């Protein structure tokens, strides 16, 4: 009998050629609670998804209680005794609590769902999870904390040996969080092995026996919780990584503001954001996942409606304009998810690049396209973003690599000469070479007088490129850091502190 519940040996995982986990080896003792810390994108969730059967490693070995373990899917993992409580909850809100708990495995008698047994067993599990609810309650009536507990009850129904928690407290009130922690304590006392991912370092110190810090897909440090002060954790998480060279600035920002934002709010997401973006400036937005970074960009671009505040582009108020009108005023938005919102994957390269600019290459009144001038413009911009010359304009974008796809999105926007660019994770999921080229382009655009707002989870990227960094936490501006004071640790600390502070206030009375 081995003392390890789970052993990971040399696990490798890449997405679209980009390494996410690099030769990770990690052993977890039976019955311990292991905290997992790391920056966004350090590989924590990927690791958990591999354990939970959602992803398969490219190479390496997993052992479960000393036996080789290769989960092909989440059901398989569940059967092996590994339960996964997700960050975003996976319950069906139209079904009852009982139905959700036993969704994959209804108790039946002669092929018919046995409602009585269903209710009885659900009640037992809910008791164990410390949730006092009738099993027939529809899930849509529950608060997010209660849903979290239902998820746990669901996990308990499978009698797990290991439970994985991926940031379980992000949507909980303080009281619900306390409740969760006492439940975790009870699970521990039953000898269940727990792996707990969180950004909230105080929570880790409170419940974990040991902690492992991931950075760039590798274990940066591991040991008993008591040995890791918060400072040490942050240093480990932020420590210099990646051999990335950032191109030096070409020019300095101009004094006049191109974008002025004041009192920008959207209920529950963003509140009272105020800042200015200057001509030629590269302004970074840092923040943890869920801090409202993307929501801010969507508000600025007009994709979501704002509740209050003003946005002025070159002194003109634009908060009432549609995205289309904002584009006409010189705004551009490179979205976080290029497949979902950035590209028409089945469209050709030419169509995608010219989608925005096409409107200005037409003859009135029929909207007849001037195909020649459009083709020339596309050819010119392709050169400028250094899109792979082997791809024909008529080729579907789907056939390109991630980096080239991202260049297509950039080319689309550059073709309309924007004066303000919102770039949400511009270098996510692309290879180092393409990254470097995109960084160069960003520099050139800034030198050309455009104001650029970069949202990124990679602090390196922000410190390497930006003239100034704003730290967002829980929808508020928590910090503003000038270039002279750039320090990855400070940024991370600030983002985390903001998140912790925001979680604390007693907005917990309402379910």
């Amino acid at each position, binding site marked *: 009998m081995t003392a390890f519940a789970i052993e990971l040996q040399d696990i490798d995982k890449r997405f679209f050629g980009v390494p996410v986990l690099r030769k990770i080896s990690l052993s977890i003792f039976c019955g311990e609670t292991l905290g997992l810390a790391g920056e966004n994108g350090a590989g924590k969730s990927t690791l958990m998804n591999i354990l939970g059967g959602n992803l398969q490693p490219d190479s390496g070995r997993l052992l479960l209680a000393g036996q080789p373990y290769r989960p092909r899917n989440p059901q398989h993992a569940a059967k092996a005794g590994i339960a996964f409580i997700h960050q975003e909850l996976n319950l069906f809100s139209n079904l009852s609590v009982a139905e959700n708990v036993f969704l994959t495995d209804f108790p039946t008698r002669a092929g018919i769902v046995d409602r009585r047994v269903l209710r009885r067993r659900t009640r037992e599990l809910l008791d164990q999870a410390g949730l006092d609810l009738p099993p027939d309650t529809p899930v849509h009536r529950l608060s997010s904390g209660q849903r979290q507990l239902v998820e746990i009850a669901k996990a308990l129904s499978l009698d797990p040996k290991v439970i994985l928690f991926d940031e379980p407290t992000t949507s909980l009130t303080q009281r619900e969080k306390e409740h969760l922690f006492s439940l975790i304590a009870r699970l521990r006392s039953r000898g269940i092995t727990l792996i707990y991912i969180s950004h909230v370092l105080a929570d880790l110190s409170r419940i974990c026996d040991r902690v492992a810090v991931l950075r760039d897909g590798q274990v940066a440090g591991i040991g008993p919780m008591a040995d890791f002060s918060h400072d040490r954790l942050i240093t480990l998480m932020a420590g210099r990584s990646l051999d990335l060279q950032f191109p030096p600035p070409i020019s300095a920002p101009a004094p006049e503001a191109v974008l002025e934002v004041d009192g920008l709010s959207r209920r529950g997401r963003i509140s009272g954001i105020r800042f200015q973006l200057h001509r030629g400036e590269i302004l970074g937005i840092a923040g943890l996942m869920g801090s409202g970074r993307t929501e801010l960009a969507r508000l600025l*671009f007009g*994709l979501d409606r704002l509740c209050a505040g003003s946005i002025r582009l070159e002194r003109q108020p634009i908060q009432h304009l549609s*995205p289309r009108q904002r584009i006409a005023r010189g705004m551009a938005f490179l979205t976080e998810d290029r497949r*979902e919102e950035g590209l028409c994957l*089945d469209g050709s390269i030419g*169509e995608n690049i010219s989608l*925005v600019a096409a409107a200005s290459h037409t003859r009135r009144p029929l*909207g007849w396209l001037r195909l020649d001038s459009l083709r020339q413009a596309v050819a010119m911009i392709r050169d400028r973003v250094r899109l792979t010359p082997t791809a024909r304009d008529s080729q579907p974008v789907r056939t390109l690599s991630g980096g080239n796809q991202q260049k297509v999105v950039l080319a689309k926007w550059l073709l309309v000469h924007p004066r303000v660019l919102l770039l949400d994770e511009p270098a996510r999921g692309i290879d180092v070479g393409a990254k470097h080229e995109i960084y160069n382009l960003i520099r050139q655009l800034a030198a050309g007088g455009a104001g650029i707002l970069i949202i990124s989870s990679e602090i390196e990227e922000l410190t390497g490129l930006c003239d100034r960094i704003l730290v967002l936490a829980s929808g508020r501006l928590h910090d503003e850091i000038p270039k002279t004071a750039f320090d990855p640790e400070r940024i991370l600390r600030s983002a985390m502190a903001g998140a912790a502070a925001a979680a604390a206030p007693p907005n917990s009375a309402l379910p």
Partner: protein
Amino acid sequence: MTQTQSTRRSVRILRRIVASEYLVLFLCLAWFAVLAPVAPGFATPRNLTNILAALLPLLVVATGQTMVLITGGIDLSVTSIIALASVAGSALVTGAGGLLDASPLAVPAGILTMLAVGAGVGLLNGTCVAILRMPPFMVTLATMMFFSGLAIWSTQSRSIHDLPPGLLLAGGNVWISAAVALTVALAAHLVLRRTLLGRWIHAAGQNPKAALVSGVPLQRTLILSYLICGLAAGVAALLITGRLETGSPVHGRSQLLDIIGAVVIGGTSLYGGRGAVAWTAGGVLFLTLIDNSLNLLSLSHFAIMMVKGAVILFAAFLDTLRSRLTTGT
């Protein structure tokens, strides 16, 4: 060894044909070649004229439908548009008590009424889909029932006759019909290929979210595509009314599957984002060839329906297969 090579090669050729844009034209040729010796009179000039006459109205409606399918929608109401436009235009100008009987304006007014009915229903569909964000299938199923009911109810299911010859000219003469249909198809082709609206229609179907972020006026695009589709159905109503010299509330009633089937057989995707008028023309030709040749073989109408149903099912399957191949799932 050589055998596996040659199988591999034939698989490759087969795959290229299946993936080809012009698959349906190959199929038309093959069908023609196979059935010409068997189906008596199939390859005679007279029959070819019949085929042409039969496919023209279908081509016009299917062209409009192509636009809507590219946006990722569907318009089931086209048959009811044909019926309603036919009776509305006819009722206005019929010699048996029409409002504009014997007026010099009768012909243009009749034609304009048909087009206006088409555009009106299209506008309603488009508004529901684009602005109220209702699912196209539901919206157009409902408008199909409503307007088809309206056409039958308002005429008490009677046909309308005594129409002025000018109104019948477009549909009555094959060559004028052909000119009208080709004009519509060419115009739609140019809109899709050479105008901003065409770009928007494709983008809306390929990825509405990305289109919105890229400043495509989604609502306007959707409304216009349904409107054009309705308008095309109005033109088809004119052709059918002229061909049968009758305004009838049941015109087009049994053609819905032919219309959507022809578009899909052509290769326009039911998933949106991919399609062309030229493809649709191929699909229309193929379906009409099947219908005509099997008819000449004296197959029962119901047997022909079975064959057509099978062909359309196969085309839809190919569509799914292709979209799987391209998305790699």
